[in-house]
């Protein structure tokens, strides 16, 4: 349908379909005319014409690389930063002008171009960001975490965080250079830093990256084919947005993450323009830097995966255009595909693994929250568990005393105590009234169990030792009460669809003991099928019922002291049935002499243990990071949901002085904010209008302008959507600052729409007066942005004391909860 219409119009701009024909159609003198015109245009300062000429020039090098090109090699091509989307531009018509052009350039030239606009944008942003960077000299919001992590890096203490480490490492590096020793307790938001904490240095990292974002944005928009003014406008909007300012002044990850993402996109857009110079140095460097930068974004926050996906999408679209380009042979096409794939696989992977390598090799000491990791992992850290288990025997044998830890998920140990299950539960079901078995989250003497072989009655480690192998049948006896772990066909207390697990008490009521368990080691290859403490992960399968010992995840009521329930479950292959021995010693008897003898023998037992390899650690850490749901602060006072973000319904209180109303409140510039939303709606509205009209063959915009309009949407609208909509599916507490990446795309779109409005007025309507008035309005609008920015400076920088009236005067919306101290 579409092509038919275009053919009717006979436009020679219609892409691809008629390309071949076009070239043939053009007669020679037409071509000559064209080239002359283009030469003229090159001298012209007007940007748009440079675009066209640039295109033509570059286009000449297109061609089958295997046949000798009749034009000079690519290195000679004119330096040119005109934005071009090669796949959509018409193919070149002439090869005449190139020679004249390239003759101007010496073959080996090192040119240094300074982009004044980029530099001044950077400087302006940098000044606003570093002004009084040290104040407030207290812990602001999430500095609590990131500052703490930096401190832990200094002290090489392991910590667990569900986000990757690159951003934290950058901050820590700055802290390290500034001489931070990590001796500061980041206890709560608002507490003052002591003089040893290099606050400014640490805050400099986000401030620096936050300022670099401005020139990046500027260049990004220019790459998209917008004017320098639009690019500068977008940067202006970002510099004078209070939210972005606040977010890049404190030790927070967003600005680092956003810079890497945007810079990667910029490189990809630049790369697209090098379509015609494949495998040249700039081509490679753009591609590599793009991969590096995008993956750096992922290494700061997993959310960067969306930016990464956007980059790959642009790349894929570009490649799809190349598939349609018949001048590229099939073999070249494959070559291109594999080059790109190779670069986009190796660089991100190695960067990602590299950051973790640094992470894991720096953090070699045990720390406060490492009990989320498995025993094996903990044992590889200096101090902590390693100190406890350093001299314990490895081989679990008949007579071993062990604690059994629930390996994955919640940390707890198999536990029992001398209290029975209640005869009847609250819902009327009966129990076995035998001794309770639970999973207890703290170390306790009741966590000790003794492993024994059923055929052997004595609990002592015999001579020779009888090691327990994969597949053995054992009994497990509770250390203090000497009752055996038992399971039977009685519904469990809280999960009635599972079997109860108890320590067997013989009531002589035709309920025989079923206390045999089958040891199934999950990783026997590591230990030659032997059961080793810490290292071996085991399942205990109940012999009579073939059900597995399982942590059910539910809590017992008060009669079970709110400890966690243990059941046996017929579904064997699940995580909650995996256990490992953590602490381990061999049973010493009451007899003093014998104990001594045992002690002596213990020294002969091999105690050295294999350290986990980097890969094992990485695997486990990754696994925990992905599947560990961190404690969710549901219903945080300043939490907001994605729909609130569009209208800036709520800010976040970042910090408040203890003795005055000086405070940092995370709030955006409301004018920018609302205009951004309007810009987005405007873009989509206009897009639909254009689309509807085009379908009826009314072409309001020239093909080039329409293409530009679409490209803007592809990058910016999709960018917005891909960074915004996933939050609707995220099941955790969200804050306004999660919106920042999407917000930046929205601002860019706004700048593009301002330019498009001007284009419509001056070109489409042909009303220069109106266009001037429009510019005036834009100017006024920018002034109002500056005004609002200045108005909210006190709560963005948090440096000035405020009276409660002043604070109240800033609560422009009823829902903005700024804080006032009551006298």
């Amino acid at each position, binding site marked *: *349908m*579409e092509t038919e*219409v275009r053919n009717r119009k006979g436009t020679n701009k219609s892409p691809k379909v008629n390309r071949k024909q076009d070239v043939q159609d053009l007669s020679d003198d037409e071509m000559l005319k064209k080239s002359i015109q283009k030469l003229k245009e090159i001298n012209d300062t007007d940007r748009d014409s440079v675009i066209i000429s640039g295109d033509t020039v570059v286009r000449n090098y297109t061609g089958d690389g295997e046949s000798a090109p009749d034009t000079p090699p690519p290195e000679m091509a004119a330096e040119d930063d005109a934005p071009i989307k090669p796949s959509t531009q018409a193919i070149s018509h002439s090869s005449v002008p190139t020679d004249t052009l390239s003759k101007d350039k010496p073959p080996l030239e090192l040119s240094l171009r300074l982009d004044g606009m980029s530099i001044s944008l950077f400087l302006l942003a940098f000044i606003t960001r570093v002004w009084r960077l040290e104040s407030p000299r207290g812990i602001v919001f999430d500095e609590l975490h990131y500052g703490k992590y930096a401190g832990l890096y200094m002290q090489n203490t392991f910590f667990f965080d569900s986000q990757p480490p690159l951003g934290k490492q950058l901050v820590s590096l700055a802290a390290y250079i500034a001489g931070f020793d990590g001796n500061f307790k980041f206890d709560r938001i608002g507490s003052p830093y002591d003089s040893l904490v290099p606050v400014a240095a640490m805050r400099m990292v986000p401030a620096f990256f936050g300022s670099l974002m401005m020139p990046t944005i500027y260049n990004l928009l220019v790459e998209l084919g917008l004017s320098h003014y639009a690019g500068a406008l977008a940067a202006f909007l970002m510099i004078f947005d209070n939210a972005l300012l606040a977010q890049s002044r404190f030790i927070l990850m967003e600005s680092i993450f956003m810079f890497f993402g945007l810079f990667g996109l910029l490189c990809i857009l630049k790369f697209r323009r090098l379509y015609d110079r494949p495998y040249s140095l700039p081509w490679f460097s753009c591609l590599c830097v793009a991969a590096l930068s995008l993956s750096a974004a992922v290494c700061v926050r997993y959310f960067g995966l969306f930016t990464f996906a956007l980059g790959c999408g642009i790349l894929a679209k570009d490649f*799809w255009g190349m*598939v*349609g380009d*018949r001048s590229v042979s*099939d073999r070249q096409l494959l070559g291109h595909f594999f080059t790109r794939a190779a670069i986009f696989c190796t660089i991100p992977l190695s960067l990602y693994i590299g950051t973790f390598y640094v992470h894991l090799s720096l953090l070699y000491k045990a720390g406060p929250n490492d009990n989320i990791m498995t025993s094996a992992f903990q044992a590889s850290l200096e101090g902590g568990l390693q100190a406890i288990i350093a001299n314990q025997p490895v081989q679990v044998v008949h007579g071993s005393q062990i604690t059994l830890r629930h390996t994955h*998920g919640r940390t707890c140990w198999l536990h029992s105590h001398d209290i029975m299950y209640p005869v009847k539960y609250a819902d009327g079901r009966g129990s076995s009234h035998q001794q309770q078995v639970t999973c207890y989250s703290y170390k306790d003497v009741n966590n000790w169990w003794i492993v024994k072989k059923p055929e052997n009655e004595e609990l002592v480690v015999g001579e020779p030792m009888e090691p327990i192998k994969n597949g053995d049948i054992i009994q497990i006896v509770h250390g203090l009460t000497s009752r055996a772990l038992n399971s039977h066909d009685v519904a469990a207390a809280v999960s009635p669809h599972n079997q109860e697990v108890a320590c067997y008490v013989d009531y002589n009521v035709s309920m025989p003991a079923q206390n045999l368990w089958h040891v199934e080691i999950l990783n026997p290859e590591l230990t030659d099928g032997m059961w080793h403490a810490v290292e071996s992960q085991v399942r205990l399968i109940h012999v009579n019922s073939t059900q597995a010992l399982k*942590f*059910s*995840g*539910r809590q017992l009521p*008060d009669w079970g002291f709110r400890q966690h329930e243990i059941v046996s479950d017929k*579904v064997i*292959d*699940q995580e*909650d049935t995996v256990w490992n021995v953590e602490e381990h010693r061999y049973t010493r008897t009451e007899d003093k002499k014998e104990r001594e003898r045992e002690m002596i023998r213990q020294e002969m037992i091999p105690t050295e243990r294999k350290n986990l390899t980097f890969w094992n650690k990485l695997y486990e850490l990754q696994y925990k990071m992905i599947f560990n749901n961190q404690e969710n602060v549901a*219903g945080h*006072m300043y939490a907001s949901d994605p729909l609130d973000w569009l209208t800036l319904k709520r800010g976040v209180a970042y910090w408040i002085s203890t003795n005055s109303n000086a405070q940092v409140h995370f709030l955006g510039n409301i004018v920018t904010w609302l205009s951004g939303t309007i810009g987005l709606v405007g873009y989509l509205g206009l897009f639909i209008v254009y689309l*509807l009209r085009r*379908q*009826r*063959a009314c072409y309001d915009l020239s093909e080039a302008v329409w293409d530009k309009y679409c490209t803007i949407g592809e990058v910016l609208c999709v960018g917005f959507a891909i960074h915004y909509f996933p939050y609707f*599916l995220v*099941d955790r507490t969200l804050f306004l600052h999660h919106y920042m990446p999407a917000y930046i795309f929205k601002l860019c779109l706004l700048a593009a729409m301002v330019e498009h409005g001007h284009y419509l007025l001056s070109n489409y309507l042909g009303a220069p007066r109106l266009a001037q008035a429009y510019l005036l309005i834009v100017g006024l609008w920018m002034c109002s942005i500056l005004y609002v920015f200045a108005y909210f400076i006190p709560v963005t920088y948090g440096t000035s004391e405020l009276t409660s009236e002043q604070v109240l005067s800033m609560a422009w919306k009823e*829902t903005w*909860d700024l804080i006032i101290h009551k006298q």
Partner: protein
Amino acid sequence: MAEDSAKSTKSSAMGGKNLPEFDKLIMSYRRSDSPSMWWAIFGVVCVLTAATRFYKVTEPEHVVWDETHFGKFGSWYINRTFFFDVHPPLGKMMIGAMGYLTGYDGAFPFVKPGDSYEGVNYLGMRVGCTALGAMLVPFAFIIVWQMTRSLPAAVLGSSLILFDIGLLTLNQYILLDPILLFFIMASVTGLVMFQAQKDRPFGKAWWSWLCFTGVMLSGAISTKFVGLFVILYVGLHIIKELWDLYGDLNNSLLYVVKHFMARALGLIVLPIFMYCVYFYIHLTVLCKSGNGDGFYSSAFQSQLEGNSLYNASMPLELAIGAEVTLKNARTGGGYLHSHIHLYPEGAGARQQQMTTYSHKDFNNRWLVKKWNEEPGDWEDDDPIELVKNGDLVRLEHVPTGRNVHSHREQAPVTKRHHQVTGYGENGIGDINDVWRIEIINGGEGEVVKTVVHKIRFVHHLVGCCLHSHNKQLPKWGFEQMEVSCNPNVHDANNLWNIEDNQFPKLPNGSFEIYAPGFLEKFMESHTVMFQGNAGLKPKEGELTSQPWQWPINFKGQWFSAIEGFKVYLLGNPLIWWGNLVIMAAFVFVYFINACKTQRGYPEDPQIKAQREATFAACGWLLIGWALHYLPFYVMGRILYFHHYFPALLFSSMLTGVVLAYILESIPSLLPGIIAQSAYHWLTGMIISTLAYSFYLFSPLAYGMHNLEPGFENHTIHSLKWLDTWEF
């Protein structure tokens, strides 16, 4: 079972003997140009369907799986008792209607799966559901036929559905799924029939298929909210169609608008109307108080016969000196409650406990007082002072004489909130007892009204809001719900309403005037349903079915685990795995072709047209599959295996189309002699393999009598191909 293979014999048994006659038949089957052939095959498919679906439909004679819920809902409709469920009402109403029409009296309690149906007239409901479920096969036949105009494709597509064990199992019981699947397939059938009328727009058939589609769509969404996906599917089809109409410059704009309006009428307005009608019936039929009352607001409850608020009369406005009860306005919120027990050591100040309590109790009564003076007795003739929006008040607990009080201490459970206590002696407390009443969306000086107004109590000094949620206090608080003072004023759980209001000096009014209209009830049931749905989250440590497990038939679901009659819901692995292979093949081939087209390789236009038509049909079916499957990945709620079945229908039809296409192209690749009979052989082989696998696995659906002698050696044991299958 003999019947199953009837058709396969027909096409395969005689590969090479006699047979111009036979070849002719096959050719006409392949070319799909003879109506009598069409009807004959369609008839065979229908007969086979009826035979497989109604075989053993009465067994087992006990409650199976979720029949315990849906049967119960049906009974409640018959008894007209109000209940609450997270699904919209149509499916349950249909079950109720089936039962009612076949003489079921609604007396069976449906307590738990496995309860015997002895003497209960359950057959009507079961047969009704099965009949709806049986319609899927003919529907699939028609859909594939209309999309491809190829008889072999239609036969293959529908037989994949016919021979699936999972669908058979799911459709044989009193469940919502047969009804839902019926509506989904009926909607798509309506759509393809509607599109077949393309050349006769605005004709009688055109309109009736349009309306048929609309009604079926409304049925799908009113059975379960997943019906939304089929609406999206139909919507996409329609948008595409309109876009083409609009892009055709021969059509005037007016004509396009006419098309648009007609579709909007049939597919938007009509379904919405029908949806409201179903709810109207639902709310009208259920007029007696039942166990669902507590989920709804006071105003709603006042409409239910037997509820304590029914026909109640009390003053409509709140005055100083009135005795009231306060109900938390969130779904299932309790009454503000206090009792003489104190908070224990370590849970804030040792003052009197303040909780919410779901049952009606004398301890829920509160006296409304001015902030600075004690009210007179009801007998005095002081002027009546009404409480207005923004007034400062105190609330005194009538039985103990303590005021609702809050201060900067941690609340017992929610540590970030402030503690709320009962404080003072005989109503004399301190300044921390003062609360400001705010009416939500209320005007300045508006009088606070009973039941209808949602109000918030803001603590005058601290600025926090009286708050309650569903977190329980420990044993010392009798496991009643916590009440706290929430510093976040805008929290949705801060809202309360006055339910009971006693003040003799004001005239009693009847709540009839505030009785929520249909629209309000409609809105409220929806908020409650969505909250209920959002609350269906898996608990910590609970095993739920994961979407990735479904298409690979990883694990089934026990329907009936009663000794002696076991039913296990599991797909026919041949069909399910085949579907996946074929789908992957299709995507791959599609991609290769797209590349070829993009490279602009020359191609025979006739082959290209044929391929594009097939690909278009496949593409739409693939979209249907994706729409019914992928969204489950992002759903936070608890998921079950049977959620995959709507998607399965689409993927089975896709397989049918692709298989027919392959069968048609293979002979052309083979040398002459084999080519002639290859088609027959292949078709026969496919159909008979399907039938045989159906026969093998059918005990799963028809019931495994594991107590009968000889069961140990039953073939079903050897069919446990995956360890995760639990039979």
